[in-house]
């Protein structure tokens, strides 16, 4: 079988695109030099891809799992309840206000996050339960690991604006944005973020009488 010149050119272009796809390693530190875990690193460029159709935020042992979820705008998120008690998930955030009243098991419908922004989740029964959903305008994102690092892979060549958001970030991610040209290979970017004190409600017994009671 012989390939025509046109077909050969197409195959070369496709493979060349893959070969040129780059990666970005994002290293996040807090302003004291510690690793910035649970931060969302995302790259916004000209290229885009269809959103992943579905994501899951589970509820296990009276905790949201994971603590931070990153999705592309338009993604549907389901909130299964894996505990044998009921939960009541809600959000007041402007990017997505919703409420899943007292339920067990899996809600019938997932929640579609159709607006870019950062959403705080809570449970009306267990005040210490809190989680975040970062709704992003790009398919290129990762949540940083315990060591504060995240790897954004398979970025088509081009120029990107890389931003990092964290639940405790003082200010807006735009203030810390960095621009980068992506070609083949891996580039590294470092972000140092000013973070607020973590004042999540505690599960251990505290002083208040109004929380769990």
């Amino acid at each position, binding site marked *: 079988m012989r390939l025509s010149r046109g077909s050969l050119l197409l195959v070369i272009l496709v493979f060349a695109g893959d070969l040129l796809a780059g990666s970005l390693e994002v290293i996040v530190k807090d302003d004291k030099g510690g690793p910035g875990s649970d931060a969302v690193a995302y790259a916004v460029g000209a290229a885009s891809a269809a959103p992943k159709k579905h994501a899951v935020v589970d509820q296990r042992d009276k905790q949201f799992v994971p603590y931070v979820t990153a999705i592309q705008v338009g993604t549907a998120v389901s909130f299964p309840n894996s505990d044998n008690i009921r939960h009541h998930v809600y959000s007041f955030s402007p990017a997505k206000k919703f*409420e899943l009243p007292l339920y067990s098991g899996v809600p019938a419908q997932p929640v579609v996050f159709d607006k870019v922004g950062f959403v705080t989740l809570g449970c009306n029964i267990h005040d210490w339960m809190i989680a975040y959903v970062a709704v992003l305008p790009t398919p290129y994102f990762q949540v940083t690991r315990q060591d504060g690092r995240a790897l954004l892979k398979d970025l088509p060549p081009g120029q990107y604006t890389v931003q990092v958001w964290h639940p405790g970030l003082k200010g807006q991610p735009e203030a810390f944005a960095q621009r980068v040209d992506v070609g083949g290979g891996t580039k590294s970017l470092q972000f140092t973020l000013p973070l607020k004190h973590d*004042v999540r409600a505690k599960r251990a017994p*505290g*002083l208040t009488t109004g929380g769990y*009671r």
Partner: protein
Amino acid sequence: MTLGIVLLMLLSSFARAEWRFEGQTGLVYDSNLSNSDRSADVRDDWAWRSDVAAGNALQLTRDLRLNFGADLRGEVWDRFGAFNTIGPGASAGLRYRFGLGRQAPWILLENRFGYDRFQDTSQSGYDNVLNFQAGIALSDRIALEGGYAFESFVAPDDFYDRQVHRGNARILFDVTSSLQVSIGYIYREGDVISYAVPPRPDIARFSIEREDEDEFGQPLRTAYKLLGRTHALSFSVAYQLMKYASVQLSYEYAVTTHDPLQYENHIVEANIAVAY
């Protein structure tokens, strides 16, 4: 028919009920266990205090929760064993939250009924506390709480019957995710028992009742029951050790008066608390 539906709803709720187990153990020091006004009569002591409780939370509607449970409390004093006590109790309460989330204002109406058995059995009796509390979060780190409680203690020996009205207010501050502090004020008005070495005609003049007692050894003291007003300031700290446990320290300075009698208590507590 209606009763059947209500029972069915309750059974259904019980099936989804959420159990909670709590325990607390630690030391308490009272600088004036004898509630005496004269320094020569003052007796201080410390005790090992423990509470265990099992409770259930039934979320009846989005905003309304029914809590009920049972508990067992105990105190063992170092020197003055007459005050050693153990007591089972049961409580029930309704909490209503005006909206969703931990920052929504709430009110709580609860009642605890228990029996306190003292080593000095004449002090033993039934204890009932009706408590109304309300709270509001000013921010994600600062909250205000306040309320009113009516405490009633009924003993076979009428001398130990007591009724107390109590009002309280406090501010809570989450310093970090692990550290919480609170500053509070408590006003109590009602029966108190003050011990003094007789003769004390000045106290006898306005006391409701009196009895000669040997709880504090020699010299024998007279216990005076009188109507007192107490102003107390408290400072508490809770530090989360792990997911289910915290250590709690608290200090209370209380001044009780019935003119011309006045006595002070410094009460320090250190506890480890667990909840599951």
